[in-house]
């Protein structure tokens, strides 16, 4: 059965590390949904959040293989963890004067934001988890999506740590 896991890795913040990790995924044929990297509170450590799909066996291998890389400091599979997950999306849709009121209504329901307006298009920023962004994308389709970009999921555990 295909599962979708969010894996969080703390890695050395050095050139070449991203290549080592993405190379591992392509060499072993793992399917990545998204991969997001950014520096953490310590400037020499980056956090990589990887969303992967696969069966139990594959996901176990992914965690083990990541752990094996000397540049990877810790790895945690968030499968049984209460986490906050966020992904940020920018989407530009066609929006002539007639359509704008409808769009603005959807934007407010999703607590999204209009960040750019042009003659006949509008750019919307929306943040959330996978389900929310998917639902929002579906609602935007009838308005004809011109462009779309996402940061990929980042996540942290809930609770006092």
């Amino acid at each position: 059965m295909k599962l979708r896991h969010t894996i969080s890795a703390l890695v050395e913040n050095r050139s070449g590390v991203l290549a080592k990790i993405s190379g591992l995924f392509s060499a072993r044929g793992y399917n990545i949904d998204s991969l997001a990297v950014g520096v953490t509170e310590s400037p020499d450590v980056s956090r990589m959040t990887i969303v992967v799909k696969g069966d139990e066996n594959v996901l176990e291998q992914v965690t083990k293989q990541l752990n094996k890389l000397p540049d990877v400091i810790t790895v945690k599979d968030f499968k049984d963890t209460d986490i906050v997950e966020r992904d940020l999306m920018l989407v530009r849709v066609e929006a002539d004067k007639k359509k704008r009121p409808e769009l603005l209504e959807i934007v407010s329901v999703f607590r999204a934001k209009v960040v750019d307006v042009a003659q006949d298009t509008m750019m919307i920023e929306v943040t959330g988890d996978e389900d929310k962004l998917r639902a929002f994308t579906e609602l935007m389709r009838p308005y004809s999506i011109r462009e779309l970009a996402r940061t990929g999921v980042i996540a942290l555990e809930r609770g006092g740590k």
Partner: protein
Amino acid sequence: MNGAKILLESLKKEGVKVMFGICGGSVIPVFDELYKDKNINFVLTRHEQAAAHMADGYARATGKAGVCLATSGPGATNLVTGLATAYLDSVPVVAITGQVATSLVGNDAFQEADTTGITRPVTKHNYLVTDVKDLARTVKEAFHIARSGRPGPVLIDLPVDVQRSDTSFSYPEKVEIRGYKPKIKGHMKQIKAAAAAINSSKRPVIYAGGGVILSGASEHLKKFADKGKIPVTLTLMGTGAFPDTSPLSLGMLGMHGTFYANKAMQESDLIIAVGSRFDDRVTGRLCDFAKEAKIIHIDIDPTSISKTVKVDIPIVGDCKNILTSLTRLTESRERDKWHKKIGSWKKKCPITYARDDKLRPQYVIEQIDKLTRGNAVITTEVGQHQMWAQHFYTYTKPRTFLSSGGLGTMGYGFPAAVGARYGRPRKTVVCIAGDGSFQMNIQELATCVVNKIPVVVAVLNNNFLGMVRQWQDLFFEKRYSHVCLGKSGCERVPDFAKVAQAYGAMGIRVEKKSQVRGAIKKALEYKDGPAVIDFLTEREENVYPMVPAGAALDEIMIEMA
């Protein structure tokens, strides 16, 4: 001190006495330091691939890390096959490559290649050193990573300007890599569970691999097997980890394993995997693999566990420690019924061949075994001869059978023999080669002649890419597509004895069975350089037993005499 000298000083701190490689524009500063340094023996090879295999052979024969050195671009890319070979067989090799100056990196400069990018999938770790201040620490880390945990090759890419830059030299005492802490000690709860399973097993088998040799655990394995009277089968890589001469020995398992080893695996109720990884050449068709067996898996690499075969009792750690604890908890058992059964399989299908007047490759290996009293270090190339070298030589000690198991690299065996001889200069070293494979690194005869390295190359010359011909024979109705190495008909090309002589080596041609022993003796006695014996063997001999690819482990083809 400049980077080049820091490199050499650091290598010496790691105990490096010999290095293999070829110079070039972007490593000249290192070579200039080598010129002045009398404590490192640099061996100039004729191809960088061979340098990597020599470092690998040195490492496998001694247990120490082997070191090779090449220039940027083509020098580095030529190392790749050697690194991949070492990677798949978990061999500690440290490779050093020159790189174009840091200011030129990324500009497609002359002889620039993205060496760390190219070698990433075939090394355990690699480094591009851009600041000379990082160099000593990088060397320290590289050796630590190469040798510890599951060993493997590590590459250091060193731009030429870093080799020239100056800084003060101090070698770090300790390594601290926060992301790298191999687990050595096995979990006691798991070890106890394993012991309980062993003590209640009626038909246990130990399936041991190269990990036993890497961990230096051969004696521990012997004690464990002897105490529990548990039969032992070895992988190709495990050859030598357990003496072939023990009554508990089942020989090799897998595609060209013995009938009785494969049978024992399939019928056992408990498989104890030690430093082995359930490779597809070992398990046969997975869904039919050892259906009744519980599986204990001892390995230092967690990624090896439950990768292909689901394991019941995993124990992550160094097999030496774990075997010691396990032996203590294992009760002595006779297991007579099981041994009787195995005995009957052994009698029914021993490893054998037609002992007639023809010059058969198996006979040659038997005679090498007799004349070296099983005491040589044997290296092999890849193909039929590799399997025969496993079957017909008697191995009783670890680090005496060096063969490219994981990658199956033709061209490995001869340079590996040279490396082994540098590592163990008092040992007789014999490379058992095929005529196809030997030609992939035959140029190293020059290296051996120049340095007076007395390795013996026994070419089992069938004038074919024999192993592929065997597959075409058995599974493609004898359509021998591009596997004949000679001229049309059967004239063999080249004449290896003459080639050897042209290099200044001893070259002997053997056409008849009666000449075999004399030729081997003569070659073994020759100490001034390499000796090549060209054995013109039966051309269409096949390796048996054989489990066809994709078949179950007990669907075994046995020779029809």
